[in-house]
């Protein structure tokens, strides 16, 4: 639609001009006609007055029947060119004198009429009775042309026409100027509207144009364009966001209309199906990416949905087969959703090539199976070696003791039966044999206990180590009441663990401390716990013989001892036992010490223990 650039202006000017012209013409006509009638009346009046005066002047001539005098009186009319003719009639109605004197008698009415006046064509005619002392002596007839009236009208009309033309000119100038104040804002508005429409330029604003309707229109226009601009921006942003989502999505995103035609085909889909967006959009989706075998069910599924609104494939994760341009098929995971909008439905599918995933899953499954097989094999191996170990310790338990018993028993028999044949040296040697035998028996027992520890099942529960410590300390003091040992056991050392195993561990640690302080006149044994790096570190500290830190790593090796048997008795199994128990509780065990300055054993226990 073309903008009505000039019509409004023209219409405005035309309206103003028409209005003012009509008004002027009417006014002019009224003025002229009013003047015409006024002037005519005054003409009549003047002629009547003149007739009256002439009549008065003619009485003498009439009285004396002197027509020359009368003609003389009438000739005075010569001064007025508009006077066409005059006639004086006598008492009996005979023509007495005329003006002009030589005028033919046919130019006048034959008989006088009653006093009065009338227009006869372009002439004004007046009859006047001439009276003398109340007696009618004659009648005067005056005839005047309307030259003055015509002149008057001509002049007046000219003035009116001139004034009208001048007024119309002024009105035109004024209207041209006035239309500007009305039409200009409207035209500006029109211009702006055209720019919005043609150029889609929503930054256009018009200047405020006062507080009239046009002003209101401008303001409203600005508001509307601003609103549109806002929406346009939002729309653009949304579109850009959608575009970038589509472009950067790792999944193929394909939109299909209700006829099965592709409406959108993002770059990931291009890559996946080896098809360009240009060739895809508008094509039938089924022919594009669905394998021939599945096309029919796709078509019928779509038809079914359009008919019933029911679809099994919507809003679910589906694993399907798709086909590339070259006809090769591959597995995909698809989620199809209906786009919420008015009108016929659109469907968007999010498609992921799961070739790799399926391969990885297969691989993982295979690895798991392998692993399981290996675990089964290892478990079997482990069980076998456990069985062997068990058989070994069983055999040790049964068979290793018997020869020792024989050695000890027969040494004793020798001492009993042949004592008189043995000298003191011999007896002492036999005592050494027996002592060594007993020690070996102890070693075997300890070793079996250690092996036993690793096999027994753990039943974790709440254990009060403080109470346990006090209990063991009491039994130690009871066994050797003459020793001066001060126990300092922190209260509230509660943990989770196997009570039986923890008792063995604690017993070993306290017994150890008790043993290695035995050469002091008085000793101090301390049990407590310190928080360190978020875990609780328990300790058992003594001020006994201590040890050289250089040998610290040997402390927990089974049967490894840092002291001579003659100094402190023992098989070297105690701390190995403690370590095994702490390990089974998921904790660590370590020691600090110095020769003759005591030793401290530290350990941690993990929450609930572990095997």
């Amino acid at each position, binding site marked *: 639609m073309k903008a009505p650039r000039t019509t409004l202006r023209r219409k405005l000017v035309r309206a103003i001009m028409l209005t003012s012209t009509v008004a002027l013409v009417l006014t002019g006509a009224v003025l002229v006609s009013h003047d015409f009638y006024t002037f005519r009346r005054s003409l009549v009046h003047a002629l009547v007055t003149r007739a009256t005066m002439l009549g008065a002047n003619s009485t003498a001539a009439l009285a004396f029947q002197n027509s020359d005098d009368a003609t003389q009186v009438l000739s005075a009319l010569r001064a007025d060119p508009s006077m066409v003719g005059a006639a004086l009639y006598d008492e009996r109605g005979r023509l007495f004198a005329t003006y002009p004197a030589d005028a033919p008698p046919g130019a006048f009415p034959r008989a006088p009429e009653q006093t009065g006046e009338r227009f006869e064509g372009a002439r004004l005619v007046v009859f006047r009775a001439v009276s003398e002392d109340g007696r009618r002596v004659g009648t005067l007839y005056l005839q005047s042309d309307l030259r003055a009236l015509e002149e008057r009208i001509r002049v007046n009309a000219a003035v009116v026409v001139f004034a009208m033309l001048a007024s119309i000119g002024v009105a035109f100038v004024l209207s041209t100027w006035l239309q500007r104040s009305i039409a200009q804002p409207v035209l500006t508005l029109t211009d702006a509207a055209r720019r919005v429409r043609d150029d889609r330029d929503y930054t256009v604003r018009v200047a405020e144009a006062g507080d009239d309707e046009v002003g209101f229109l401008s303001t409203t226009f600005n508001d509307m364009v601003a609103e549109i601009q806002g929406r346009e921006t939002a729309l653009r942003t949304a579109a850009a966001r959608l575009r970038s989502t589509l472009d950067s999505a790792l999944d193929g995103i394909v939109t299909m209309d209700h006829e099965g035609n592709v409406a959108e085909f993002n770059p990931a889909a291009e890559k996946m199906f080896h098809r360009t967006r240009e060739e895809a959009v508008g094509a039938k989706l089924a022919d594009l990416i669905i394998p021939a075998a599945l096309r029919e069910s796709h078509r019928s599924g779509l038809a079914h949905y359009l008919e019933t609104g029911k679809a099994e494939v919507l809003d679910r994760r589906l694993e399907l087969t798709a086909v590339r341009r070259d006809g090769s098929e591959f597995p995909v995971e698809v989620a199809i959703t209906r786009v919420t909008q008015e009108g016929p439905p659109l469907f968007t599918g999010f498609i992921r090539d799961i070739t790799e995933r399926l391969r990885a899953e297969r691989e993982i499954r295979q690895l798991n199976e392998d692993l399981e097989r290996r675990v089964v094999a290892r478990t079997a191996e482990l069980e076998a070696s456990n069985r062997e170990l068990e058989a070994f*310790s*069983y055999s040790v*338990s*049964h*068979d290793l*003791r*018997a*020869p*020792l*018993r*024989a050695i*000890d*028993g*027969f*040494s*004793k*028999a020798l001492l009993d039966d042949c004592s008189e044949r043995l000298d003191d040296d011999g007896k002492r040697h036999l005592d050494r044999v*027996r002592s060594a*035998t*007993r020690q*070996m*028996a102890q070693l075997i027992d300890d070793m*079996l206990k250690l092996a036993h520890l690793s096999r027994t099942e753990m039943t974790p529960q709440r254990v009060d180590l403080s109470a346990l410590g006090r209990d063991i300390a009491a039994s130690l003091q009871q066994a050797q009441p003459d020793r001066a040992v001060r126990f300092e056991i922190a209260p509230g050392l509660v943990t989770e663990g196997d009570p039986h195993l923890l008792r063995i561990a604690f017993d070993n640690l306290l017994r150890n401390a008790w043993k290695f302080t035995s050469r002091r006149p008085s000793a101090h044994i301390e049990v407590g716990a310190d928080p360190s790096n978020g875990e609780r570190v328990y300790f058992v500290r003594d001020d006994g013989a201590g040890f050289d830190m250089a040998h610290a790593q040997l402390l927990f090796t089974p049967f490894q001892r840092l002291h001579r048997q003659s100094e402190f008795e023992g098989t070297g199994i105690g701390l190995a036992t403690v370590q095994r128990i702490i390990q089974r509780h998921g904790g660590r065990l370590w020691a600090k010490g110095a020769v003759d300055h005591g030793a401290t054993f530290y350990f941690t226990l993990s929450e609930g223990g572990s095997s």
Partner: protein
Amino acid sequence: MSEKTILLAEDNPDDEELTLRALRKYNITNQIDVVRDGQEALDYLFCRGAYASRSPKDVPQVVLLDINLPKVNGLEVLKRVRTDERTRTVPVVILTSSAEDRDLLAAYNNYANSYVCKPVDFDQFAEAVRNLGLYWLLLNQPAPRPQPAGR
């Protein structure tokens, strides 16, 4: 009631001699029959094979049974003794080197009357044997003699 005998099932000659020595040391003079494997122990108890001539009436006052026995092991011997009418009530004391839980359990599950671990130390061993003798020979009242079938 004939003299109270003790049946000692022990394959180790050293242990056998030490046991006998310990019993003698404490003046236990009862007859002590020794068998050296499980089969022989069963033959003795059921009066068959080499012991066919033995009278089934002579039920030992107590059987001291080692676990590690050749041919038929001690626990198997115990099981068979307990499943047979004739020997079900014979007191059986397991006398062994093993203190393994599973041996203890197996012994008691098969109704052993007692389980004694042989100490290595002869003094302790002798003490244990003495106590056994005192208890089973003097204190304990055995079940009434069974009436063997066919007699």
